[in-house]
């Protein structure tokens, strides 16, 4: 028998996230976890390339598409020696493609993101938005904000570096276009600090901001605190946020990882989490009714630590924890 005699299904066909089913926004329903690409880089400036992340993440994800590959029987987590039932993915994980942003002016792009995420929110489906830089966060949340108060969890990514942010709602100069999304969301009251949890920001927030943010009820955890936190407690906090607001949104930035693990973060900085810690956090948050998770700051055009894109594999591996939690394939009991 010849040693090569069959097609290679992993590499062929329509490129969707993990070989999931292609779907239209109109066909989504509450059971769906929809992948949506937002190929935009609007406010990072230094190293262009995050707009290529949606395609790059999808390309990497096909290596993880066990549920869609007849080659394999069923996956087993070798550390836990536990079988993973991926059958739910066939029906529930869908890819709605990219938001058509090519060639749009910034304002039009923001409007397009806001419009599409609002349509998905109206279908009550949960979304994973593949950025893009962190300029996707604000319009993606805006798309859901009409329905009421919003909870926000930020993992990695930028924080406001200046103080007096909380005074800006009373008529001061508006926060600049390039400001971190959290600054813009807090400054005009669209998101309240008491509904925000920030984990592992590599940037150095202003002391006054930290003071005011925490006094207003915001939660700020550094990498050491996140590493020590129990998954059950993270789930509990996320569920509490979800219960006290109308919708819960999560930003997962590539800078959440330790920079020694990969070099594809748009804003690498010291600090950060190991892969198991990121998996713990995303798996725990995935147990809560999250409306959208936004992947930001991953730049596939950076060589990273080599021409092998370790950052992409780390990101997809971490996302699996979230997806499995969100689809109910893993369970963490919050106390």
């Amino acid at each position, binding site marked *: 028998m*010849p*040693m090569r005699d069959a097609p290679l299904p992993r590499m062929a066909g329509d490129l969707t996230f993990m070989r999931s089913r292609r779907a239209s926004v109109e066909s989504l329903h509450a059971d769906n976890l929809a992948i949506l690409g937002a190929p935009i880089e609007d406010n990072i400036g230094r190293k262009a390339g995050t707009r290529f992340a949606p395609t790059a993440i999808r390309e990497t994800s096909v290596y993880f598409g066990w549920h869609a590959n007849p080659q394999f029987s069923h996956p087993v987590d*070798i550390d836990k020696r536990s079988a993973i039932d991926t059958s739910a993915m066939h029906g529930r994980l869908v890819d709605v493609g990219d938001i058509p942003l090519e060639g749009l002016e910034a304002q039009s792009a923001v409007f397009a993101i806001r419009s599409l995420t609002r349509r998905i929110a109206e279908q009550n489906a949960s979304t994973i938005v593949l950025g893009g830089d962190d300029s996707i966060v604000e319009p993606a949340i805006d798309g859901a904000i009409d329905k009421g108060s919003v909870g926000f969890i930020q993992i990695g990514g930028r924080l406001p570096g200046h103080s007096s942010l909380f005074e800006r709602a009373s008529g001061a100069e508006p926060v600049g276009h390039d400001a971190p999304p959290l600054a813009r969301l807090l400054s005009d009251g669209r998101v309240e600090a008491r509904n925000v949890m920030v984990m592992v920001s590599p940037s150095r927030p202003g002391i006054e901001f930290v003071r005011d943010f925490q006094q207003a009820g915001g939660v700020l955890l550094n990498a050491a605190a996140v590493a020590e936190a129990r998954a059950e407690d993270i789930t509990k906090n996320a569920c509490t946020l979800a219960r006290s607001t109308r919708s819960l949104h999560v930003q997962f930035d590539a800078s959440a990882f330790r920079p020694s*693990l990969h070099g594809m973060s748009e804003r690498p900085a010291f600090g950060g989490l190991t892969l198991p810690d990121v998996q713990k956090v995303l798996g725990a948050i995935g147990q809560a009714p999250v409306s959208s998770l936004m992947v930001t700051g991953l730049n596939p055009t950076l060589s990273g630590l*080599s021409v*092998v894109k*370790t950052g992409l*594999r*780390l990101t997809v*591996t971490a996302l699996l924890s979230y997806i499995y939690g969100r689809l109910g394939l893993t369970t963490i009991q919050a106390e």
Partner: protein
Amino acid sequence: MRPPAPSLFDAPLGDVKTVAEGSIGVVGMPTDWTHSSRIGAREGPDALRKATTEISRGVVDSLGGTAVDPSDGSYWRFNVSASVVDCGDAPIDPASVERTTESIAAMTESISARGAIPLALGGDHYNSFPACLGYARGLAKRHPDRRFGYIQIDGHLDFADRLGAWGTHNHATNGRRISELPNIERANMVWIGITGWVDGDELALIEAMGGKIFSSGDVHKLGAAEVARQAVQHATRGCENLYLSIDIDAMDAGFLPGTGSIVPSGITPRQYCQILDVIAQEQIDGLDIAEVAPSLDPSGRTERIAAHLLYRVLRNRIFSPAMPGDP
């Protein structure tokens, strides 16, 4: 005089027939077309030869051939010419897996049949199968009644029966094909460093045949040396002979990205060395190292780390005890 092209640790070049009993015969396997994704391991043998000469020349040129082990203050003399012969590369036929397989196996068989130790340099990990095939044939010639144990350090099981268009002979099936060799003790097959998801049927098959798997999580939980100790214990039960297959991708991709199938194992270079230090104490009769793809890591550290891994396995052979002041 050094050879015009680097040899492994600057070992003398020679034909497989010149490898003496008890010494090591090096065989390059510069092929990666049995890899299913990112290629580049065809450049592995040359990269390993160059990188190992950085170690050997550091000792010879800078230290006069004698080095001190800082861990215990002992003196060691570099003595590769007495223990290693680099036999060059096996002829590769990119149009035929069968011919390439037999070409590599013929060299390792010849070395093994002489009572020497074949050391095969990949190439993608499929080539571990022809390297081990030749070793097994050579062992059968010397000791028809003996069976051998097997340790595979790897991020992946490589135990599929076939892989898509790549068929039955590729870098995902080498462990399976080796398990089918007539004189391997299948219950003595051990894997170290497996990471993430594995195929449930393959896992069940390995457990049914009595094989043992230590995940990367086990390495972190039990400790690298303890895992290696237990692995050796399992692999050598009732077997006098042991084959070792080193896939560098068991190491975390952050340390070692120049390989085709990277994994986030968290296994550090230090842990990998601790594993090899324990296994190196055993009588290894044949070994290979695979998946060094230098073109995927412009920094060059992948082949340097891989060369150091080889040094840890071979240092008791390429160095001999010395006294202070020895020439």
